[in-house]
């Protein structure tokens, strides 16, 4: 369905000059630095897959999505989506895909959601019957009827995201690109969005490529995950594997009354020490936080503690640094 081979995107970034009158000199001549946002990535995605595409900020996720949607023209390499080269046939391509940018909206800001959907119906030339069927579906699954007559600027973020999903799916696309669809959304709304995405993928056989910073999205939705860092795909494969390897670590952060010397705790590893705070990393299958707390509390008075779950960025970093999770690593 999606085929990407040796894809590269370079940006020219203008460099600011230093020294006296720098702002004025920039007006007359600018120096450019070439930045490689996407550096030789290759992958394929099959029809009906729901793939998570993750990586730290600035890793090149959005840039790749923009090339897959035909917004940006690649510097070199091959992109093909369902037999269409996006940047060459942008119009034709746009009919077969739906896109949600979590940080932006494609809806018209001042008018009720339903007016935007009606305009999109005309733009995509959606037949009346299909339009009505899709609206019914959205009312069922994301309760569109509750806010369809509200102007977009008055929607809550969760509602706006649902409305944007509806807008992306109004023409029943074959492929859905979601760029951080749950960013800034509360837990309940997140859950609803995830269920909706899952159902669209399962019932309508829509292929989904999703970028996120929320491990929950990946866990709930995807079976396959691609990790990108510094413009390169560094992991592509099973999600279970990576979760078993990296997702089972927790960090116990303990705040003591006064600074104390480093000490060992059975079942955990001291990873960081700063002032009166200490960080212990443990495997949640081998040690329980309550045991650790009892153990530590018995020796020193504790004033505060928290258990931290691993962040995606952290996993990505450990994969990047380790560079070998399994033979599956690209």
């Amino acid at each position: 369905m999606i085929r990407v081979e040796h894809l590269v995107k370079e940006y020219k970034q203008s460099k600011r000059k230093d020294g006296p009158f720098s702002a004025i000199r920039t007006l007359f001549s600018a120096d450019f630095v070439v930045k490689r946002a996407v550096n030789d990535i290759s992958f394929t995605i099959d029809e009906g897959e729901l793939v998570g595409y993750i990586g730290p900020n600035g890793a090149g996720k959005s840039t790749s999505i923009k090339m897959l949607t035909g917004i940006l023209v690649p510097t070199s390499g091959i992109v093909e989506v369902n037999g269409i080269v996006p940047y060459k046939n942008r119009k034709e391509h746009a009919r077969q895909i739906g896109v949600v940018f979590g940080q932006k909206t494609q809806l018209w800001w001042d008018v009720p959601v339903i007016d935007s959907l009606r305009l999109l119906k005309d733009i995509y030339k959606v037949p009346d019957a299909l339009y009505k069927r899709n609206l019914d579906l959205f009312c069922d699954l994301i309760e569109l009827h509750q806010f369809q007559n509200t102007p977009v600027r008055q929607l809550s973020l969760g509602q706006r995201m649902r409305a944007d999903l509806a807008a992306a799916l109004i023409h029943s696309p074959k492929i859905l690109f979601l760029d951080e669809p749950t960013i800034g959304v509360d837990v309940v709304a997140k859950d609803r969005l995830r269920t909706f995405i899952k159902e669209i993928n399962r019932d309508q056989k829509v292929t989904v490529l999703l970028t996120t910073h929320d491990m929950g999205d990946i866990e709930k939705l995807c079976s396959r995950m691609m990790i990108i860092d510094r413009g390169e795909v560094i992991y592509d494969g099973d999600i279970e594997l990576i979760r078993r390897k990296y997702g089972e670590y927790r960090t116990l952060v303990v705040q003591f009354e006064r600074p104390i010397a480093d000490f060992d705790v059975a079942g955990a590893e001291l990873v960081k020490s700063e002032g009166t705070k200490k960080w212990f990393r443990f495997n949640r299958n081998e040690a329980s936080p309550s045991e650790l707390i009892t153990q530590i509390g018995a020796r020193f008075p504790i004033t505060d503690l928290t258990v931290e779950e691993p962040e995606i960025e952290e996993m990505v970093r450990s994969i990047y640094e380790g560079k070998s999770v399994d033979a599956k690593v690209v």
Partner: protein
Amino acid sequence: MNIFWSFTRQAFHNTAIYRFEYWLQLVSAFLMMYSVYWIWNILYTQRPGAFGVELGQMVTYGVIAMALESIFNPGQGPQMYISSQIKSGSIDTDLIKPLDFHLHMLAKNFGEISFRFGTIVLPAALIGFLFLDLQPPATALNGLSFAVSLTLGYLVLFSLNFLLGMVSVLTIDIRSIAWTYNSLVRFFAGQMVPLWLFPGWLGGLANVLPFKCIYSIPLSIYIGKLTGAAVWEGLLFQAVWVVVLMAVCRLVWAGVHSKLVVQGG
């Protein structure tokens, strides 16, 4: 064509929300028309016969030019939309639509323009006929040619605006350029002062630039300053510019799209 109508409907929905702004625009259009009416009346009392046409014709020219300001104001063209989309990075949301970008901008802008034409220009013109001695078109043929000429003039203005919008893709900000551009358009299009009053070389320059397609040609046809073969020459001049500029727009967009950088995430 359907899509043009859809965007007009959307413009209606969009603007209907800001009713107060609508009334302000109508009032300010009328005030401008009224000032122009008085200026020409005073000038004609001072120096009758110095302006090449009758007072009635001149007032009609000036007052309609002011009424058209609300659709032809270069500050509201597609370049402002393109520039703000580029600045915020929201241009993505335009590019994921199955529309040719150039035609998309045309449909969107045309929708807004038709809406303002119906709700501001026509009422303002009606007030003009009732209170400011506006004359009907010189002849029926002139009236008809005026309608065609106005449409061609709009397409010329749209294309120039679109090209300025393309500049904003490269420079991000066009506010300072836009200000100069707006004054240039108003001046060389003959909105305030008809081009036949321009002295020697300035008149010659204004005559070859595309700007005169916007106000000067349509209005000169309306008041009968241009008649017979001159009307056809004017329309031809406009048509040639429309074809040339449309082609340039499409070429430039193709080039710009390949260099596009989207701001933010």
